[in-house]
């Protein structure tokens, strides 16, 4: 039997092959994942809940299927974990908030049910910024997550636990959600791959809602190829989500092996501006040069409304959040303030006690922009600018097949560095937000390290429902510079 550290170093694709060849059992892989989690997570704090008994039972069932030659999918027996925004039947789901403490959902969401139907072993629930609002995972009433590459730094957010657990090799892959960069930004800061699929590609049924016109579910893993395997299992139409698209699901893994010859890659001028860390710029430009050397052609182009994306996003997202979060009122689930004498007081007190400062800030901003007299000046205006941002991309994709740039302006920042300045924190998402506003797919893949040893990510954006081209580019890059072979030293 291989040592636990060697098992945890495998990619999903490699683990899947060993499981198929019966060189390794799911129980061995699951025990390796659980023991690494037990050893490292007291330093990383990626997990909110570890379901050891459930994971081992699922692993044994997977081994039974492998033994009888009836494996459900390449993911059968592969240990994965979920951002705590996915509702899981009978397993506490908090969305990173005190207000949902103790909530044991009576059903599984679609993405979770599909992973289970594919045979995946779910080892637990991962930390996140409260209600997915944040870029550092510091908006949490629980332990703050630490970046495995430097424990004094943030993992990014809001899917910070999902990124840190994969980067620390506690688990082979995870699911996150991305409303303005919440999969790609932490993936970049933790040196892993993360995909925000096209809006409508993956069902959001059973995912706690933040901003419904932007939220999307996606995979996080050490390689683009592994993300392709995960997306394969969760993509596709779901009648339980009105925004789920009835579009055929192609073979994503095959796409990741396709190569890049002849692809036209657009390099937006606005993604290489002042404020971009010189080490990030150099690393991303070197990544683009590799793609060119592999046969891709680059095209310089412009996305002129990029500078308006953050302002547009913070109106649209907070407005939708203020409406979505109205449901947390102490009536149906979660905590209720005990001292209230009237119904209204119960609402006011429960929400005051249950929500953290960033969630209150966004509810307030969203309520303000939707309130009487302000709707046209803010919400309607932002929706119109959203149209301009979409048109920028439509024009860009007339002359290229994908766009490439940095995922984030800097590598991981220090814990505490931006907590007192919400606006500075919002600007950390400057390159990831437009993709959500336009509903496009976006993939972040590792492209290098800073001199201080911090991971740097490269972002690829594609046409709606063309995740295949992103996987082709990401897959080619990771075969060229296999950065996923480098593991953080966690001391």
């Amino acid at each position: 039997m291989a040592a636990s550290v060697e098992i945890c170093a495998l990619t999903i694709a490699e683990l899947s092959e060993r499981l198929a060849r019966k060189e390794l059992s799911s129980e061995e892989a699951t025990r390796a994942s659980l023991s690494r989690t037990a050893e490292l997570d007291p330093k990383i704090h990626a997990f909110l809940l570890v379901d050891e008994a459930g994971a081992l039972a699922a692993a044994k069932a997977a081994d039974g299927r492998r033994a009888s030659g009836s494996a459900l999918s390449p993911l059968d027996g592969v240990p994965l974990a979920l951002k705590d925004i996915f509702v899981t039947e009978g397993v506490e789901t908090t969305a990173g908030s005190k207000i949902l403490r103790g909530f044991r959902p009576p059903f599984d969401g679609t993405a979770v049910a599909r992973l289970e139907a594919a045979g995946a072993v779910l080892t637990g629930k991962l930390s996140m910024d409260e209600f997915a609002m944040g870029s550092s995972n510091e908006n949490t009433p629980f332990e703050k997550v630490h970046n495995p590459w430097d424990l004094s730094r943030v993992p990014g957010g809001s899917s910070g636990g999902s990124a840190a657990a994969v980067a620390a090799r506690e688990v082979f892959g995870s699911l996150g959600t991305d409303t303005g960069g919440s999969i790609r930004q932490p993936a970049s800061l933790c040196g892993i791959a993360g995909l925000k699929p096209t809006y409508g590609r993956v069902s959001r049924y059973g995912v706690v809602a933040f901003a419904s016109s932007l939220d999307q579910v996606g995979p996080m893993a050490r390689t683009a190829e592994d993300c392709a395997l995960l997306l394969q299992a969760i993509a596709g139409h779901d009648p339980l989500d009105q925004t789920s698209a009835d579009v055929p699901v192609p073979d994503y893994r095959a796409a990741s092996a396709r190569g890049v010859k002849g692809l036209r890659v657009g390099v937006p001028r606005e993604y290489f501006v002042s404020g971009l860390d010189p080490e990030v710029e150099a690393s991303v430009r070197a990544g683009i040069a590799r793609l060119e050397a592999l046969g891709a052609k680059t095209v310089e182009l412009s996305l002129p409304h990029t500078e308006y994306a953050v302002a547009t996003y913070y109106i649209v997202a907070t407005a939708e959040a203020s409406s979505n979060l109205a449901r947390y009122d102490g009536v149906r689930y979660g905590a209720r303030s005990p001292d209230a004498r009237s119904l209204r007081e119960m609402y006011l007190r429960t929400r005051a006690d249950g929500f953290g400062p960033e969630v209150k800030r966004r509810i307030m901003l969203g309520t303000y922009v939707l309130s009487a007299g302000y709707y046209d000046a803010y919400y309607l205006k932002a929706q119109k600018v959203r149209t301009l941002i979409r048109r920028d991309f439509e024009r860009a994709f007339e002359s290229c097949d994908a766009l490439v740039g940095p995922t984030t302006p800097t590598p991981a920042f220090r814990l505490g560095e931006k907590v007192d300045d919400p606006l500075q924190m919002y600007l950390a998402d400057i390159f990831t937000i437009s993709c959500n506003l336009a509903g496009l797919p976006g993939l972040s893949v590792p492209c290098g390290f800073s001199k201080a040893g911090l991971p740097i990510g490269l972002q690829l954006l594609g046409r709606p429902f063309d995740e295949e081209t992103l996987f082709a580019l990401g897959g080619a890059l990771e075969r060229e510079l296999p950065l996923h072979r480098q593991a953080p030293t966690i001391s």
Partner: protein
Amino acid sequence: MAIQIDRAEVRRVAALAHLALSEDEERRLAGELTSILGYVEKLRALDTEAVPPTSAVAAAVPPREDQVRPSLSAEAATQNAPASLGGAFLVPKIME
């Protein structure tokens, strides 16, 4: 023209949002909302007179016929409530 959010405005919005705020939170939010709204002012520089709004990026899914399907029982639906009785949610008295 820069928007200035004062504590009275914070209280008006907090009442709409069903949030009880401490005096300290009111003061802090007045400053933070002023700063964030000041930043989003930049959208005014764009002429959007003739631009249609984008409210959704998904293709519209055609409606379907209503169907009767199994759903959660009242017991399962209320099992997470802070207070419930016989499949109903219990809340403080609404009227005296």
